[in-house]
């Protein structure tokens, strides 16, 4: 398979790069400043694209790779891949579901605790020597707070299971109510936001869910409400979120994703009720290795004409 061209869309994982280099003819897209020239030269060699949450395969790229057979994403999210175009051209698509579910859910709870109990701020308080002058102020209890989850897929359910251990009443919004679940259903995001204290975004990013957290939802969540986003940056209208936090119309936020990563609205840096992490939802040594193996396994399966491990298209 050493002559099969694989295009890696952006840097994502050293182990994955090394393994791809061993097995295929790997092209790192970011090594080529002149993308047009690169595509002219190598378009006939490239039969696979490896993407992630940052960059995948949009319509333009797909059109420029006539020999493309498979897009294997180093993520569970598929928002950077033009799925319709792939279906149209018979291009296979795989992702990395299940293996990262727990890490992402763990981070969601970690962000809740960090915001409510001011973990980062208290740590800073101790490191700066301020504790010698007086105690840190009171924070807010997590156990028992009502949790609302947007999207009750694998990740949403894993978050619910963890929050239940903290005695949190769970409610959710999905496009259609789930019959096999014991949580309170709300038929709209606004109703969900009006009836919970901690709102968590855990759904896929699609055209319908872009800016699902808008001004109205933020207002419904309110000055005591906390927003946690472990989905995709564009789920949240950042232009509405930032002033709401600055003005105290929203109680707090824990954000792992942003509309324009790695750019983060700097005005959020000074807010003690906001915790910002650099898209580390699946960022553990253990999980990224398993994800990489899944990408490699899917590519190998495809080129050996075996069934794909985790196909989407």
């Amino acid at each position, binding site marked *: 398979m050493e002559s099969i061209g694989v295009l890696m869309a952006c*840097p994502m994982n050293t182990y994955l790069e090394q393994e791809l280099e061993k097995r295929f003819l790997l092209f790192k897209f970011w090594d080529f400043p002149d993308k047009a020239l690169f595509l002219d030269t190598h378009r006939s060699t490239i039969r696979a694209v490896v993407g992630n949450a940052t960059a995948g395969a949009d319509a333009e790229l797909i059109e420029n790779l006539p020999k493309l057979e498979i897009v294997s994403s180093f993520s569970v999210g598929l928002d950077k891949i033009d799925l319709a175009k792939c279906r149209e051209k018979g291009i296979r698509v795989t992702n990395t579901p299940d293996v990262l579910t727990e890490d992402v859910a763990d*981070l969601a709870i970690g962000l809740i605790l960090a915001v409510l109990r001011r973990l980062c701020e208290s*740590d800073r*308080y101790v490191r700066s020597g301020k504790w010698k002058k007086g*105690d840190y102020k009171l924070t807010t209890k997590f156990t028992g707070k009502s949790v609302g989850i947007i999207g009750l897929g694998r990740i949403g359910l894993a978050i619910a299971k963890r929050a239940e251990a903290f005695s949190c009443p769970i409610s959710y919004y999905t496009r259609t109510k789930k019959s096999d679940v014991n949580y309170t259903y709300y038929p709209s995001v606004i109703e969900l936001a009006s009836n919970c204290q901690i709102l968590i975004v855990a759904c896929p990013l699609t055209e319908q869910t872009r800016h699902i957290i808008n001004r109205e939802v933020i207002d419904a969540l309110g000055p005591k409400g906390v927003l946690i986003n472990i989905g995709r940056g564009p789920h949240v209208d950042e232009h509405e979120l930032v002033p709401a936090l600055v003005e105290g119309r929203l109680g707090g936020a824990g954000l792992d994703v942003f509309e324009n990563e790695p750019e983060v609205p700097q005005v959020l840096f000074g807010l003690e009720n906001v915790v910002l992490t650099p898209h580390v939802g699946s960022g553990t040594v253990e999980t990224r290795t398993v994800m990489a193996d899944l990408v490699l396994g899917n590519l190998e399966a495809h080129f050996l004409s075996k069934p794909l491990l985790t196909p989407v298209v």
Partner: protein
Amino acid sequence: MKQKSMDQQDDVPLVFVHRPPSFHFPFKDRLSTHFNLLDPLDSPDSTHFVRRHANSIRVLLCVDPTPISSDLLDLLPNLQLIVGSSVGVDHLDLSDCRRRGIAITNSGVAFSEDVADLAVGLLIDVLRGISAAARFVRSGFWAKTGDYPLGFKLGGKRIGIVGLGNIGSQVAKRLEAFGCIISYNSRRKKPSVPFAYYANIYDLAVNSDVLMVCCALTEETHHIVNKEVMAALGKEGVIINVGRGALIDEKEMVRFLVRGEIGGVGLDVFENEPDVPKELFQLDNVVLSPHSAVATPECFDALEELIIFNLKAFFSHEPLRSLVELE
């Protein structure tokens, strides 16, 4: 100050308040509506004040874990109950109290959930580097240098709980939901508990990836997490302490951290608060918290309810809640 007749001592609910000098007592007003609070620190001559009221004092409210000396107990010959406001009782001489026939109540389960929440929060923070990653974002590094280094997965980790009391049990309940494997060390094995029991902390450490220190500080548990235990936990081991600072040999822990011989620590308590070893400030695998596990309004509300309940129960000769076993 109203003078109370000594003859009326059984009718008037007198409560002696023992508190640190600088601490303003959050629910004093509410307690004053139910009880007659005698606070020597409100009087210009506190010793004289205590002597004047000594014989009528049957219950003492200890605000904060303020140490109570034998001398003070000598001055209160009719003291029957100390109502504590912390879960820890290491600031009291338990055998002295038992000898004098003084019962002690602590904060019982009023704090357990908040302390357990903080313990879990610290663990996720250490393993996933949340506070360190937040610093990374705020310093502008994400845009400049690229991705943040990978953390470590919590699911599947073997958690060793040191002390499976109220707090330890709440920690176990939470971490089970994250797919962790729970085992514990306690003074005695608990028959109704499904977790693996280790008779000593060293064996617990050998078989764990994480130690959650949730036990009471006593003579036996002083420095229970020592050099041998930390070595047994291993280079990737994590320790979370929400008990008392002196449960860990702090100097040794700092050496282990500086030499990279332990994976990380999350600490809410220290041997000499509010002093914290400066070496810890340079480390990203360390999360520090200013003894704030119970610092939520919900904790204080629950404590207030419990204290009022116990004071009322005492004066009505009814059963008390959260009595501390005086072995």
